[in-house]
């Protein structure tokens, strides 16, 4: 097994462990998931589709004082958009730092935004940095674990949700308490 493969495996294990406290549903519901993360973080999350984010960038997480803004490419498919959003949300879940950008860079990337309110920006472009790699793996694991594409109808539970929560925790090898 190569070093990259080992690193990814370990990263994936950590990302799965992190899912313990997150409300994952079948089928996956991005809006509910964002709400839960926002409540957990105590900060508002705003999803903002943008036509042609630009360059190699497909999405970005912008920190402003009162909220986290998730920018994502408008002209792509729903599943792809969801993944881009999950990548940016994963930065928040993983506790990453969004580095500050200069006013010129901000104006170039987001011409409609006042550069003075932007505290930091992370963009989904490549996975060269550890933060980007971790966010990408986290997003993939969320989609893998939390949302099959099985229609909700016949599989929707009508039973005690706490039993289901304990069963799912046991199946993931986690503590149900």
């Amino acid at each position: 097994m190569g070093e990259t493969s080992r690193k990814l495996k370990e990263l994936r294990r950590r990302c799965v462990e992190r899912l313990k406290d997150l409300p994952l549903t079948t089928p996956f519901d991005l809006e509910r998931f964002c709400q839960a993360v926002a409540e957990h973080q105590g900060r508002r999350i705003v999803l903002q589709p943008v036509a042609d984010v630009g360059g190699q960038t497909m999405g970005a997480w912008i920190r402003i004082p009162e909220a986290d803004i998730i920018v994502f490419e408008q002209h792509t498919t729903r599943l792809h958009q969801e993944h881009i959003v999950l990548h940016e949300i994963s930065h928040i879940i993983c506790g990453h730092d969004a580095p500050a950008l200069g006013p010129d860079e901000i104006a170039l990337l987001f011409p409609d935004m006042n550069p003075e309110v932007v505290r930091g920006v992370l963009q989904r472009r490549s996975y060269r940095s550890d933060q980007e790699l971790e966010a990408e793996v986290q997003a993939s694991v969320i989609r893998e674990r939390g949302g099959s594409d099985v229609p909700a109808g016949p599989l929707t539970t009508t039973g005690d949700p706490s039993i289901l929560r304990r069963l799912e925790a046991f199946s993931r090898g986690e503590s149900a308490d």
Partner: protein
Amino acid sequence: MSLQIDALLQAAAVAAVLLALAYKLPSVRRHSGDLGLRAFTACIVLTAAALVVLVDPAHSYIDALIGVPNLASVQGDCLAAGSACATLCLLAYLNYPPDRAHRINLVFAAITFLVVALMNWLFFSSPFRPETPNYWTLYGGDPAIATLRLVFLGFIAFVLLTMARLTLRFAAISTRRSMKLGMQLVAAGGAVGELWVVLEVARTLVQVLGASQPPLATETLGRILVAALLTLIAIGATLPSWGPRLGFDSAQTPMGEYLSLHRLYALWRTLGELTPGVALMAPRSRFAEAIDLRDIHFRLYRRVVEMRDAILLVKRSSDPRATERATAIGLAKGLRDDDLDLMVTATQIVLAVRGRHPGGERQGTKGASAAPQPADLPAEVRWLERLARWYRRSALLRMVSGIDDIDLVDLPGRADG
């Protein structure tokens, strides 16, 4: 021959439960304080111990060591009773809040203690008999030994019934296919276990009622049932953990997803070479991909995301004149909606591969397609598979080869879906 089959069945059952333990061991180590995981571990370890104790050479060795003939036969059943108790505890932790589960489990533990104590009292109160690996078959006619056996079987029947009832309840409320199927398999294991109980009760009663000893073949049948029930429970209890990695929870079958991985391979590699930054890992050879059966659902999801990333980047860097020309050609040939979108996208990839888009202004992706977009993973996979077919069509390649000369050759008809 019969003994060899018995040993083989026993070994298979031990292997099944130990594999289940090995699979869960990392979780147990990480959450050593979790009572549910502790109960699971106790269940597996006691089951494996019971199976080992009940067959030779361990059976004869233990009896010789302690000096009490046939003690291992009874202690093996006591270990099985302990395993059954641990199963009840695990189910209670899953089914009830911790405080209530704890109270219920104290009752289960007390009942198990009484059952084990009664079994030992009955064994030691009857005379010792010559050592044999077929203790119940040879001496089951003795009232004390028959009572001992029936006490044990009654307790096991109660545990298996509770297990089947609760796991069917879990299956009914499960929202994942692998969880639902796993719980149903455990319940099926419980049903097989009840058949074993009925067989053993019949074997015991036949002897008590004075008929001849039950044929040894029924003992082999009993071992087959035990191996089947343990295998069903081991697979069912762990399926919710490893099932998603094999695609059990996806709308496509695992085989369907595996084939999709294969169908998308060539275009995925091409797109990866065009946009090296989109892949998490460097691509492997087709052979290495084909023999790797792990994480199929996860790999397919990653493949779709990476292909979508690459397509977006290719579209952004496409020469708008070539894209417009390709669209005009498609429209002229009667392509609409999805087919037109596929044809234009395939053309953009072909041109990107050929490096025929230098100098043009960025087109961006605005208005690139008004076609209905795939809404979920299976739809995405179907769309990308169609794109892969468009991409490798020779007619398309001939068409785009003439795109600069506006001298067109035959276009394919509507893309097959």
